[in-house]
């Protein structure tokens, strides 16, 4: 029996803000539950306001959970009581915009090494002075001499490779990919997707892939969850979501995607 790597159950998050003295509430995540098995690519799709970014923030301990629970490797890492110790380094994230996710004042080496300084426990002794930096920069398709340069000397695709190397330096079990190719050109997107796939098999990674790009999700994900206004409206295998969608919102989403081949088939 394959134990789930990440279990999210009954997750809720509400943001409240005041506008002209009136209190507004935004129920960003409504009772969302899903589980990710080790080694799989789990996709979360949705449009703006669907709550997918909030879920990523909750998973990364950047926001606190209102109710519900997140367990990772059998250990509760977030619930409403807080005060859980978060397994920094075991869950890593790659963000959308590689222009802003790397500190312009740091060298590539400093950027990739940064997560190592804040590890705790066994990981600290194991990885503390990691020599993996060189191996990783090569694994993501860059060269050792790139390590002493700064982000502005690289293209968008190359910066995203650096961000991926930084995420992998702590040997994470789960990598959250938050729209990792949305800011890239088509041909560069293809390179990064290929890289993500080869890294997954090389390092035995599990991915949570968050995206609005249905084409990429269809190509990359084993199972897909569809979010609409904070609710998980459908959760199924890749096959079922794209060939036999059941929820009306999923159907609408899929029919809205301007695919060049849908057009051609109809001709």
């Amino acid at each position, binding site marked *: 029996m394959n134990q789930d790597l990440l279990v999210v159950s009954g997750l809720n998050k509400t943001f409240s803000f005041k506008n002209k003295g009136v209190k507004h509430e935004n129920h960003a995540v409504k009772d969302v539950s899903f589980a990710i098995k080790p080694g799989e690519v789990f996709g979360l799709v949705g449009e*703006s306001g669907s709550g997918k970014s909030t879920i990523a923030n909750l998973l990364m301990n950047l926001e606190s959970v209102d109710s519900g629970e997140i367990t990772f490797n059998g250990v509760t890492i977030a619930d409403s009581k807080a005060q859980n110790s978060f397994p920094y380094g075991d869950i890593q994230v790659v963000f959308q915009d590689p222009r802003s996710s790397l500190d312009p004042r740091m060298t590539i080496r400093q950027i990739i090494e940064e997560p190592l300084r804040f590890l705790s426990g066994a990981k600290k002794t194991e990885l503390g002075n990691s020599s993996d930096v060189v191996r990783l920069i090569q694994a993501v398709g860059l060269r050792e001499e790139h390590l002493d340069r700064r982000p502005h000397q690289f293209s*968008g695709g190359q910066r995203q490779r650096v961000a991926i190397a930084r995420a992998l330096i702590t040997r994470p079990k789960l990598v959250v990919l938050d729209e990792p190719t949305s800011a890239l050109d*088509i041909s*560069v997107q*293809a390179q990064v997707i290929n890289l993500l796939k080869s890294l997954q098999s090389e390092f035995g990674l599990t991915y949570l892939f968050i995206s609005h790009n249905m084409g990429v999700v269809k190509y990359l994900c084993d199972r897909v969850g569809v979010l609409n206004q904070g609710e998980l409206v459908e959760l199924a295998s890749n096959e079922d979501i794209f060939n036999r969608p059941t929820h009306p919102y999923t159907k*609408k989403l899929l029919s809205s995607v301007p695919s*060049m081949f849908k057009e051609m088939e109809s001709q």
Partner: protein
Amino acid sequence: MSELVLDIKDLSLSFLTSGTPVSILKSVELQIAAGEIVGLVGESGSGKSVTALAISKLLPTQITTFSSGSIYFNGMDILTSSEESVAQLRGKKIGFVFQEPMTALNPTMTIGKQLFHVIRRHSDLSKEQAQAKVRAALEEVLIAKPEIVENQYPFQLSGGMRQRVVIAMAMSANPALLIADEPTTALDVTVQAEILNLIGKLAKVHGTAVLLISHDLGVIANTCSKVTVLYAGEVVETGKVSDVLRTPLHPYTQALVKSLPDIAARGSSLETIAGEFPDLRKRPEGCIYAPRCPKKFDKCSESPVLMKVDNEHSVACWAQGSRSSS
């Protein structure tokens, strides 16, 4: 064949960047007839937005040098015309829709007021007639409650609604040409579908020529009848959407289509393009794509010109040219 609204011939231009001229566009050809929607597709740095700005002479004059070519708009040569006569065209004969609707809207003015000013500027309507036209313009872009939207400020609207308002403004003077530069890139897919439908419908009803600039082949495929593919400021392929995207002839177009994950089988790896985007400060001799091209041969050291493969499908590639001529 109907009359051409826009006819760009052999357009080459360069920008002066820190003292050195950078060749941005080289021998660009583009024709759009009335009522036709033509897609301009390319990756960043391909010169698609520069082309759009050149059409309305909006490029910074201090750094731009036009080295060859002409841009005819309804028979008038834009490049040799005076600034005043081109300024007359902007907004009235040539409408614009950009990626970020907020940049086109005044945040301190209600939607109705902004539309009213635009309509008054480009027509001789009386105040009452213009006011009535505001309502009609909003209705035309399928805004359900124009009487409410009229009195709202841009920040009160969603991204899709803002883009509808921008389209209403662009179309209010009934322009001959609408330039839409990545009009749906900042929008959600469901909204994108609605906006693209709207642009298609308006073009049909008003007989407007539309230049739709996008990096998304899917958007182009669903909206346009013709497409021109730009690579590093050069047209590599042009023709009917069904021809260019289904049976691409240029190796770059082929690679672009194959690099889309949409059709690739899961498990197979996506096709990628080897090498790097060329440095435009020293544009390589010969075919611009040759350094990255898997099919290059001796002939590619010479610059290819756009060669007709059939009536409407042209490609700038020696490999194709030699095949069709032999």
